[in-house]
Every structure is written in C-alpha cells, then in structure tokens.
C-alpha cells in the first residue's frame, strides 16, 4: 500500500514536470521519439570536443566513443579530441563520451526542428531544468574511473583504532581501573551502582535480541566462537 502511494506521488511529480517540459517542446514538435516516423526529416550534427587534462589525446582517443542516447547514434573522436555525430534528427539527447579509463560527465543536447542547438546539464529528476553548458560541447574529463576498492591494509594504528579492539580495551581498562578508583566493598556505593545500571536498562522493547546474544555468549562455555568479547563480558559479571 505504501509503495502504491509513493508511486502515485511519483507520477504526480512527473506529471508536474511534464507541463514544464511541454512548454519547451512545443517549439520542437518532432522531438525524441518520432525518429522512425519521419525518416526524411532534417538531420543535424552534434559537435564538440573532449579533453583529458594532462594527457595526450593520442593515448586515449583510440578507445573512446561518443554515445548519443545509448547506442542510438555513435560518433568517434578525431586525433585532436574533437568529435561530430552526424545524422541526428531533432530532439533531446544525452551525449556521453565513454572510455574505459577516463570519466566524462554526460550532457543533454536539445536540437530544435530548425537545427538550433543548446547544451545543458543532465538532470533525470527535473527533466526540464536548464543549466546551460557551452555548445559546441566542451567535455572535460573529471579524472580516471575508480573501479577498485582499496584493500584494507594492516597497520598498528588501524588495529588500535578498530572499534572492536576499542570495545575490548575500554572495558578492560574499566575493569582494571574501576576497583582502584571506587571502593566496591562500600555497600552504599554498590546500591548506587545498581540503580544506575537499572536506569540504563530501561527500555523493555528491545531486549529480546540482546538477551539472546548474551545467552548465546554465556551459554557456550569454552567455545571458541564466543571469542574474546564474551570473555570480557563474563569477567564483568563475575566481578560483581
């Protein structure tokens, strides 16, 4: 039910944007889709240049392509990085330079039926929003693609700052230091502590999972799975 509501809201939203879109599209009647229906219409050329700062064009143009709306129209890069995609009917297209090494942001190009061009930022959510880009296109690479995750390298600082380790070390410190700071043999102090513990455990909604965990930990005596955390927790209970 929830999803239907959200969907209809999305539709409403899309609908609202369409009104704006149609304001723009009325000056370009055969936009986008009517490609197959009007094969004899005028064809235009999308031009531009792709730049990878600091890298010679010869090193990357051979693996690059210009894709207009998926693979609907395909262009290739010249040896100087410039490109032209021929035979594009009027409409609105997302133009993308793809290479396996460098990343380029896509640009939306609108072509009116008279051949007037303009380029703007791609925004799939607000499709009618116009943030102008230069035309002929100047597409600058935003850097190389990052395909790989970083391996977790191991260092002492990482080890010590690891939350699990912190979790192990801090209670240990408390166990070692607390008896020295407060005298646990004092009955008043003990009462106070118990009260504060009850305060902490005030939420009755959640404990089923956590209880399960503690049961699991304390129940599996000597099992290696429980690990060091259970050990420390057991020491806590024993101490009290």
């Amino acid at each position: 039910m929830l999803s239907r509501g959200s969907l209809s809201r999305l539709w409403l939203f899309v609908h609202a944007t369409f009104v704006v879109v149609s304001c723009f599209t009325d000056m370009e009647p055969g936009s986008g889709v009517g490609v197959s229906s009007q094969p004899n219409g005028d064809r235009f050329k999308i031009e531009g240049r792709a730049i990878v700062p600091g890298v010679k064009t010869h090193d990357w143009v051979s693996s690059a392509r210009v894709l207009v709306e998926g693979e609907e129209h395909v262009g290739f890069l010249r040896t100087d990085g410039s490109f032209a995609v021929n035979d594009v009917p009027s409409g609105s297209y997302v133009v993308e330079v793809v290479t396996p090494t460098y990343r380029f942001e896509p640009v939306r190009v609108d072509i009116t039926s008279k051949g007037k061009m303009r380029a703007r930022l791609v925004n799939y959510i607000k499709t009618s929003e116009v943030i102008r880009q230069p035309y002929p296109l100047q597409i600058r690479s935003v850097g190389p693609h990052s395909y790989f995750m970083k391996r977790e390298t191991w260092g002492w600082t990482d080890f010590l700052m690891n939350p699990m380790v912190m979790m192990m070390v801090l209670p240990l410190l408390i166990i070692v230091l607390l008896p020295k700071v407060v005298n646990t043999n004092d009955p008043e102090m003990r009462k106070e502590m118990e009260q504060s513990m009850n305060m902490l455990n005030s939420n009755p909604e959640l404990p089923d999972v956590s209880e399960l965990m503690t049961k699991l930990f304390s129940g599996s005596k000597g099992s290696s799975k429980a690990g060091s955390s259970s050990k420390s927790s057991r020491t806590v209970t024993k101490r009290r």
Partner: protein
Amino acid sequence: KSKAVAMAKLILLLLNWIFLCCNVAAVFEDQVGKFDWRQQYVGKVRFSHFDSHMQSSKKVLLASESNVFAALNTRTGELFWRHVDKTGPEGNIDALLQHGQDAVLVIGNGHLLRSWDIGVGGMNWEMVLDPGSFRSACLVGHQGAVKHLAVLKKTVISLHYLSNGHQKWVENLPESETVDFQAVYSGGNGEVYALGVVPNSHLAIVVYSLEDGEITKQVSVEAPWLSSIPASCSVISRGLLTCLEMTQIPLQTLGLDVDPGFRPSLVSHQPNPAHPPLSEFLLQLGPEHHLLLQHNDGQIVTLRDYKPALLASFATAGEKTVVAVMAPKNKTACSINLFSAETGRRLLETTLIFTVDPNGGKPEKLHVQAFLKKDDSVGYRVMVQTEDHTLTFIQQPGRVMWTREEALSDVVTMEMVDLPLTGAQAELEGEFGKKADGLMSMVMKRLSSQLIMLQAWIAHLWKLFYDARKPRSQVKNDVSIENLSRDEFNLQKMMVLVTASGKLFGIDSKTGDILWKHYLENIPLNAAFKLMVQRTTAHFPHPPQCTLLIKDKDTGLATLHVFNPIFGRRSQVTPPALPQPILQSLLLPLMDQDYAKVLLLVDDQYKVSAFPSTKNVLQQLQETASSIFFYLADSGQGRLSGYRLRTDLSTEQVWEVVIPTETQKIVSIKGKRSNEHVHSQGRVMGDRSVLYKYLNPNLLAVVTESTDLHQERSFIGILLIDGVTGRIIHEAVQRKARGPVHVVHSENWVVYEYWSTKSRRNEFSVIELYEGMDLYNSTVFSSLDRPHAPQVLQQSYIFPSSISTMEATLTEKGITSRHLLVGLPSGGILSLPKMFLDPRRPEVISEQSREENLIPYAPELIIRTEWFINYNQTVSRVRGIYTAPSGLESTCLVVAYGLDIYHTRVYPSKQFDVLKDDYDYMLISSVLFALFFATMISKRLAEVKLLNRAWR
C-alpha cells in the same frame, strides 16, 4: 550483566553498520586477471589490408561484417585498437581503402567517408556524402602521388582529398537512368574512369579529368552479353578493360574450358594507385581451377595453369609481385606456394603447409603478406580465412602464429557444464553407489580407493615440487581435455557456446582456452538455437549429453545435434528425424534408465514426441502425463495458449489468452529458471512477523508493447500469467513508455526496464508478489489449488543510462542475496544489488523499516564504477549474460557475451563461506603466537605471585 547487554547491542549496531557499508560487489586491484578473462573479437572479416607502408610494420587492418574496424598485431593476433560502429545497415562497411598512414572507410551504403590514422587509431576526418546508393570507390593517383579518392554512386561521382575529406568536385553521371554505373577506376594518368553497363546492350565508359571533373571522353562499347562489371570485368595493363563473355566462345578459342555450372571470375592487381595495374591477371575457371594470364601486345598468354588450386591471390613486396596459390595436398592439409607474377615460375623454398581442421570449415579467402628478405628474395606469411570465420596466420614452413575464432563474436546461446570427476574421485563416488557387496569386500574397496587417492596426492605433490624448481615462465598450464577434472568447489566448468555461424565451442572457464570446436555445416542463415543439457556429468559411467535444437525460422523445420559437452564429439545416440515443423520444446525433469532427461518436442499438429523415446520413458510419460502442462505463444496472432499432455501423447488445450494485435504485440515471455533455488519462504518484517513470498514456479511474465509508437499514446504492458491454469495473476501498464523492454523474472519478483517517452529517460520497475502474512499450503505449491490472489507491490526508479541486457545472479542454494547484472552500452557490467530494487523501500523511515534494513526510497538509482564487475575490461555490444551457480554458495559464475566474451566470478554477499584471498595468515598466526607466549609468561608470573603471597 547489563554491561554485556549494552555491549551486545553495540555489536549488533556495528554488524548492521558493517553490513550496510560493505555490501558492495567490488573488485580489488590485485584481483585483476585472477578469476576473470576477456576475449575480444572483430566478427567475420570482409576486408583486410596488411599495412605495408613501413617495412617493420606488424599491423593488419580488418573490416568486418559486424561493422567493426580494427588493427591486429600480426605477431600475436591481439588487437591494437578497435572501433565498433552501430549495428545494422547504417554502420555497414562498404569499402576499405588504405594509403600510407590513412585508412578510408565508406560506411552505410555510401553515406559516410571516414579516415583513420592507423598508427594512433584515432579518426582523421569524417565526411557526410550526398545521398545515393554506393557502387564503388578507389584511390586516385597522379604523377606518382596519391592525394584523392573517387566515390561512385548510382547517379553521381565525386572526388575527395585524402588529407581532409573535402570534396574536390562532384559530377552527375550522364544517362544514369539507363546506364547502371558499377565501377570506378584510375590508372594514375590524371583521369578517372566510370564504368557502367546497360544490361544486355552495351558498356558505357565515361572519362573525367582529375583537375576539374570535366568529361573528357565518353565511349560506348557493344556488349550484349554483359550484365555485371565487378563480377566479370577488370582493368589490366594500361587501361585495358578485360571482360569475360559468358557464352564461352572466346574463352574456348584460347583453349580454356570452364567447369559446367561455374561462373568464372577475374582478379587483377594494382599495387600502387598511381600506376596502372599489372598486365598479369588471374582467372578462376572452376572451384579448383585457376589460371595466371598475361596481356602482351594485344595477345593473352597463359603463364601458368593451376589445377587443382583452391585459392589464389596476388601480393606485392617492394617492386616484386607474387601469386600465392593454395592447393589441396591431402584430406587434412593444403600446401601454399609462391609464384612470380611476371613469369609464372614457382619460387624456390616457398612451400607452406596449412593443416585443415577436421572440425572446421573449408578455406575461403587467402590474405597474403609479402615482404622482402635481406637477400632481396620474397618471403611471405598468409592469413587463411575459413568458412567458420576462423583466421589462421601462418609463417613458413607452416608454423601457426595465431588463430582467431571470429565465430565467437556472435554467440547465440550457451550453457555451463560441470567437469567430470577424475578416475580416483569417480572410484570413490562409485563405492557409495552399490550396496550389495559384503562387509569384507566393502572394506577392501575402501582401502583400495584410499590407496588410489594417496597415490594421486603424492603424484600431485611431486608435480608441485618438480614445477617449483623450474622457472615460472616454463611451467605451462597444460590444460587439455584429458586432464580436466572438477576442482574442490566446482568453480571451473566447461562453457559450451553456440554461435550463429553454427560452430560450437567448448571453453575452459578458468583460463578461457578453447578445448574443442565443432563446425556444423549446412546451418540455415536464420536459424534459432536452443541448447539443453540432457545428462550432466554426475552419472559417471554414462557420458554427459547435450542436445542442440536447430530450427529454421522460416520453415519451422528442426534438427537435433546430440553431443558430449566435455569432448565436443557427436554422441552415439541417433537423434530422431523431425519431419514436422517444431513449435515448442521442453526438457522434463523425468529421466530415463540412463539418467538422460526427457526432451519433449511439440510439432505443428500438436503431437508430442519424446527424445529419448524408450519404453521406460513412454511409461513414465503416461504415468505423469496429467501433470505435464506447456504453453505456446504466437506473437503474430497475439495468442497465448496452454496445453495439457494426454496419456496417448496427444495434447489438449486448457486455456487461451488473446492479446489484441491491433493495439499491442507480445515482445517477450519470461518464465523462471528451472535450476533456481529460493532459500527463504518469506521475509521477516520489523515487527517480527513474516511476509510470505508468492513462489509460483509456473508463473510467466509476458511483456507487450503498443503498436502505436506515438510518444503520447505508446505504452508497455506486463502480464503475469500462471502457465498451468492461464489465470492472470497481475497486470501492469506503463503509459507513455516504449521498449526495448528488458525483463528479469526470478523468485517472487519481476524487474523490467523501459524508456519513458514522457521524461526521456530509462526507468526500472519492480513487481514483487507476496502471499501475505500466512501461507496457504506451505509444503507444496500447486497452481490448481491457490485460491487467494497474491499481494502485489510495485515501485519504479530512474536509471541514468540505457541498458543492453540484464540478468540476475544465481547461486547453489539461493541463500546469498541477489544482484542484477546490467550490461551497459559503454561496455561496463554493473552489479546492482536487488536491495535497491525493492518495492518496500519506504519514503519515510520508520523504526520498523530500519529494523528491516530497508533503504529509504530515492527516485534515481546510481551507477557506481566500483560496482562494475569487469572494471576496465569493457564488453562491447553485450547481448547476453549467463549466470551459473558454483559449488560455493557465495560464488556465482558470470559470462557476458556479445562482440567480446568475458568471464568472472561474483560474490553478491561477499565470500562468507571461504577465506578471502587476502586473508592475513601472518597476522593471525603472529597474534596466536603472541597470545600463547603471553599466557605462558602470565602463568609464570601468576605462579610467582602466588608463591610470594603464600610466603607472606
């Protein structure tokens, strides 16, 4: 105790956090090439050109029928660069002309001229030509330099500069309504000749001046026998047009006999466009008969008669021109020899042996690379193209430098088959099979099999030791069919690929090596293929068996090819002849006594035949006939109908759904994969109740598209139909949307992708089906007894790219979370967690949704390059993604095929069942040792302390 509780809570929170952060399927940099490989192809070669402008050049240019233009390294056969154009006639390569560093392509029926710098692989220029269908193109040289090229179209001829593509002149062809201009020629004398023919009447030659395009001469020659210039005429010597007259009389006067029923053809050679062609030319008179002729003062002299000769081809090195002739030697080999073009004399020590693959096709084309040796004699290498699209590059005296199986650029369907067990493993397995033996013999058998295993293990250790002493480069991975065996986790499998050309391949999934190939001849051009695994390797004494159904799409007539998927050999089992057109084929889970699954074939009379059709099978079929249902779809009439099998193997129609063809058409029907497992029956909600999934194995997702393509009225529809009862479970319509629609149907969900015409973007939509909070019948699912309609949830998302294909990951038991593998036009394969396509993603986060780990709804799905499973190894034109489970639950094997083939492993929930390959053994062992010593020391210290206390 409360402290422990608090800690447990903290751990839980942390686990949650870790789960959310790390649930990405990314590749680590050191894993590159470890589990994955890619093979890049070009397609069936149409034009090839050896780059000869530099002596040391090792490039060969290839233009293929798949609209790909590439440069290969002749030493290794690998790609230097490759440019993939649009598919279809718009990207079709009509001609390839090369001069120096530039290669010019005529593309799309003469629509575009494109010039490439072959050194860099970048484009020099691109020119749009005037409309008109393309006829011919040639380079035009003048005074020893080539600066222009001429393009002949049906009505115009134009001349372009090679340097920038600009038009020098364009002229209309005279009388182009009657004269069919077919060829253009230039002999380097400042003139361009356009050759045309009026069929069965005369030949027209128009001569243009190179400078301004003026017609300097117009000749008409009576030639009532001529119909096509490129087929029967060619220019030789100084502008002499030689034509073949089909009536054979002039040929006979030369004393030449043409093989009956063969169309002779002429081949001339022009080494340099700035000079006229040679006066020698080749004439093919029969399938195995070639002649080298020479024109000399108006006389035609036979220099050499090659018979038998399969192929002959010219090549030039420096000033010398040679003819390479391939002659059949015996059944398995051909010999290639070089002859001097001027004299026709055989050159010494130029024999080269080409071994014909018995599982391949016949040689079809000979591409010769000739070069001058140090002693000024001519050396050569050849690239032989065979019928099965294979390229073999051979050096003297017959060493194969490389082979490229270009048929693999067009994989149609594939399967992955488990490798067989080794002898020892099979022995062990066989032990559990029989139980009739006595105790003593069982013990003996066990001991003997243990011995065999020990022996194998020692042999393995010895091999490891032996290999370790040798340098790394010498250790060959000697994968061959004989020593292939299943690995521990069944990660290595045999990939059986079926290509459109009819060539079958068996590829080792670990290395990508082609282990066997088999070329099926006489495959119809528009054949549809369906590959089925009838028997796996699990039934040891019986060999595994695959069946390929080849169906001619026009006539519907089908043939079966039964083979062993491990060795590629045709099986001894003779498949039944199928005289009737086949409508549908189904692989039943029933097995015959030899453990082969039963294949049912439905013909156009709605009669069913079984393969294998032994008595045992027929009996089983009779017993289970009442529970065998199947469906037929006729997209032409928009009819979907369900049938039931009767005991006498006839059929009975149970249901029919008609989709009106005037408004919409059926584009695809997707059922669920039969080898898919679903582990959990339901989903645990935030409040600890269970939402049960609607897991109907008979559910079909039918996709329809509207026939009206107007952007305001077009729509796509999704119908979920039960395949047994014909009941429509759900229907969804997406207005203002059009295809192509990509669908994935699995578990209890359907994901589809379409183009939204209103917002001009690609959108994903997901439908999930749930039974509700309680299950009707939890033990077994029956389509006939499911009274409640499922709850349907749907949500849509924006996707920032168009897609090429889509598939879901598949694992052994279905415990691992699912990912969608999306092939993008950029060549990346995106692994998108199904978690993002969940209709229960909330708009407003509540405590319960957080408890369930639902991601809050966001309209746009994001493409992260870290999620590309193939990092920078892009796969061009992905047509299909095949997923197969491995023996490890966490691991799914993926093959993406298109122009390239890519194989890798994916771990949708990370590797939870096996130690990761970066597992830090050093750390764990050092920590263990440290702890061990720490306990030793602390024990000692404690003892000392106790002693001290006791003394006190």
